């Protein structure tokens, strides 16, 4: 039997005077050609694949932000700002964002060459053999094209010194800060949760459902035509 909340909408859903609509039942009764469902599977599969392949990359290139490490720090002819992400920093990828401003008018300096260097200070595992890591921070890697950003691979936990060196026609400036890097920990639960949820949802959505033995007359009638009555969901008086 159709629930009241569904039938209520259906009764008042008119296409034209005197003709009562049954959008949902009509749509479901139309048998869909096989290619449609195969096409859907292909599209869903490809979307899932792209998502799986592209998501980790997208996360690594997350835009700026993070914990402010340098704020309006005088560095030669610049005021230097720097942020690190994630918080706390962990062994693996550390994202560094740098911004340079003119001390006189706080205008951004956009034409500098920025280098970020991680130098080991006091590592927890002195045998790790971790060495200085250097990378160029550029606008290309930044979502905010006014800042300079880069990713660095930090190999060991412990205390590191992060040195930022900026050069431009205005001159050369350098500043540094200490950063405590913690051991690696898997933190991308959002990714795992998202992918897991997507897999469960896709499995459930495409799982063949068996017809119920005690199905009522109205339902079995429409199923015989190839679909349930349930697309009626949501069609209601406000839609006209």
């Amino acid at each position, binding site marked *: 039997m159709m629930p009241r909340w569904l039938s209520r909408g259906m009764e008042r859903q008119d296409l034209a005077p005197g003709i009562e609509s049954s*959008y949902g039942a009509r*749509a479901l009764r139309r048998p869909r050609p096989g290619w449609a469902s195969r096409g859907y599977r292909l599209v869903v599969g490809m979307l899932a694949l792209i998502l799986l392949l592209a998501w980790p990359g*997208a996360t690594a290139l997350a835009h700026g932000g993070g914990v*402010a490490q340098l704020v309006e720090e005088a560095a030669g002819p610049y005021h230097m700002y720097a942020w690190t992400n994630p918080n706390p920093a962990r062994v693996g990828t550390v994202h560094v964002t740098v911004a340079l401003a003119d001390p006189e008018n706080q205008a951004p300096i956009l034409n500098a060459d920025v280098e970020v260097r991680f130098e080991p200070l006091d590592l927890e595992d002195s045998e790790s053999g971790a060495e200085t890591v250097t990378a160029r921070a550029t606008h290309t890697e930044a*979502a905010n094209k006014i800042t300079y950003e880069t990713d660095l691979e930090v190999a060991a936990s412990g205390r590191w010194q992060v040195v930022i060196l900026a050069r431009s026609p205005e001159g050369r400036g350098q500043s540094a800060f200490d950063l405590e890097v913690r051991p690696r920990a898997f933190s991308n639960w959002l990714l795992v949760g998202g992918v897991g949820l997507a897999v469960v949802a896709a499995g459930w959505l495409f799982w063949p459902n068996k017809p119920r033995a005690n199905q009522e007359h109205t339902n079995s009638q429409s199923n015989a035509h190839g679909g349930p009555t349930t697309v009626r969901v949501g069609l209601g008086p406000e839609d006209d």
Partner: protein
Amino acid sequence: MSPFLQSLLLSWNWRIEIILPLLAAGVLYVLGWRRLRATTRERMASRSGEWTNPRPPLAAGWKPASYVAGLVVVAVALMSPIDVLGGQLFYMHMIQHLLLVMIAPPLLLIATPFPMIMWGLPRRPRRNVAGLLTGDSAIRRAITQATKPGVVWLLYIAVYIGWHDPGMYNLALRSDFVHDLEHLTFFGTAMLFWWHVTGVGPRFHRTFNSTKRLLYLISAIPANMFTGIAIAFASEPIYEYYTTVPRFYGLSVLDDQVLAGVIMWIPGSMMFLLAGLIFLSRIVQAEVDKPVNPNPAWAADEAKLVRR
């Protein structure tokens, strides 16, 4: 164009995890809309021999436009320079939130997305989804209980005010994960709130009449307005994060904060008022449309004669 402006305009944050769901939602909607439109045309043609109404109400042509506009607003809010600059300018962040909470949900919902997306699904997933939402399923009962208008109203207000707590806001600005969570909860609760306001499907609850919708909307204004006023009139920076970012854009921290508060207070409340006015006009129109007694004098005098 100055290099500064050029850099600003190029500051897009393309995120695959946002693009794909938006694309999927758009494709399903358009597919469903096309099917529904074609089916209603067929149906009309078979009933009356000719098609007299080329635009059936549910599959009206403006609906995909509204829906796509809603998706574009979400995309602009989450990936355009508005999002990128939100990390440096509080008022930009506020504009981003208003887009997610006040603009995108009504645009998406007036396009009746649920039936369209159902129509856009292939048969098996559609049947599975429908199986959950019909009859006396536990999921349907749970959704119905969890999304009662009162619960949704409280949730919406709690989320909206809760995220403006300095601790939460600073945390969101420092962590991408928390920031995404903030946007997700803003958008999710706003969709639920506007779902009750617009009254579109799926209908698990009794639909509000225009008066109740008007009251529902108006009751959400004070929370928005007072939070905006509190931010605008604060004498010190509320969100410490914004004191640590460069002031490239010629606005001091406090000026930026005042602007953000005013945006939340005035344009934010205006959206509720605008929607409220639409319902008010409906109420007035319903009164105007009431049938009038053609001869009131007869109703008074002749009726007495008839009774004799």
